[in-house]
């Protein structure tokens, strides 16, 4: 029994000025999710969040590929499959289907919809200049909510003081 009511301190001011920068460098379905989940969680805690898509991570924001990321058990010992079987035809497609289903069953959105949710929550999406040049892609090829194609130095500049995750 206490006199003053116990009220959670949501401490909105504490997250003021806190920034998170996430560099997404992988284009596999399984490696797309950690960055998206953490970005979404950070935004839900009032943290300013920036995602920078580079190299294979470009697939996550490329219109023609973002719906079709894949998961492969090849070379991934954590699947605990006999490694000799993993390169068999159809294995990647099967593993991808299975993973997509497991994710959907948890109520977690697919990649394009997850990006939409992150943007709605106030997150910022940036595309890497060099990756765009390497793949000969322009903003027209990218997910509409990507704010701009920027250079590495631009990204470093705009995430000054941020905590950084490289995935």
């Amino acid at each position, binding site marked *: *029994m*206490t*006199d003053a*009511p*116990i*009220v*959670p*301190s*949501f401490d*909105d001011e504490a*997250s003021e000025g806190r920034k998170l920068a996430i560099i997404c460098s992988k284009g596999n379905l399984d490696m797309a999710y950690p960055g998206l*989940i953490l970005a*979404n*969680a950070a935004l*839900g*805690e*009032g943290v300013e969040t920036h995602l920078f898509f580079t190299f294979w991570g470009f697939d996550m924001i490329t219109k023609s590929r973002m719906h079709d990321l894949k998961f492969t058990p090849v070379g991934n010992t954590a699947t605990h499959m006999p490694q000799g079987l993993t390169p068999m035809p159809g294995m990647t497609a099967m593993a991808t289907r299975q993973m997509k289903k497991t994710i959907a069953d*948890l*109520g*977690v*959105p697919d990649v394009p919809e*997850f990006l939409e*949710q992150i943007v*709605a*929550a*106030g997150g910022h999406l940036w595309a890497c200049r060099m990756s765009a040049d390497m793949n000969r892609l322009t903003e027209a090829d990218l997910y509409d909510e990507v704010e701009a194609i920027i250079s590495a130095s631009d990204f470093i500049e705009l995430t000054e003081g941020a905590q950084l995750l490289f995935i």
Partner: protein
Amino acid sequence: MPVTTIDGREVHVDAEGFLTDPSEWDEGLGKTLAAAIGIDLSDEHWKVIRFLREDFATQGETATTRRVQTVGGFPTKQQFELFPKKPAKKMAYVAGLPKPRGCV
């Protein structure tokens, strides 16, 4: 489990202040809880709070912001407008429910 007095009545809360017994909640208390964290409840807020209560009653778990959008039909953007900065926790608190345990 601490007991605290809110709005002249004793309620059970966890260390942070979230109600631990959803049955101790009613809409009058919800209004007081919202005021305690600086939110003046509009009709729009109430629609969300009532969805959370109904959903908890059937699911036994507090809806995440994702679920409030997909099942409740309240867009993420609107949730952030109504319950700024930390919508998931604030919605749960005002609705007298535990913090959502899901990641997304």
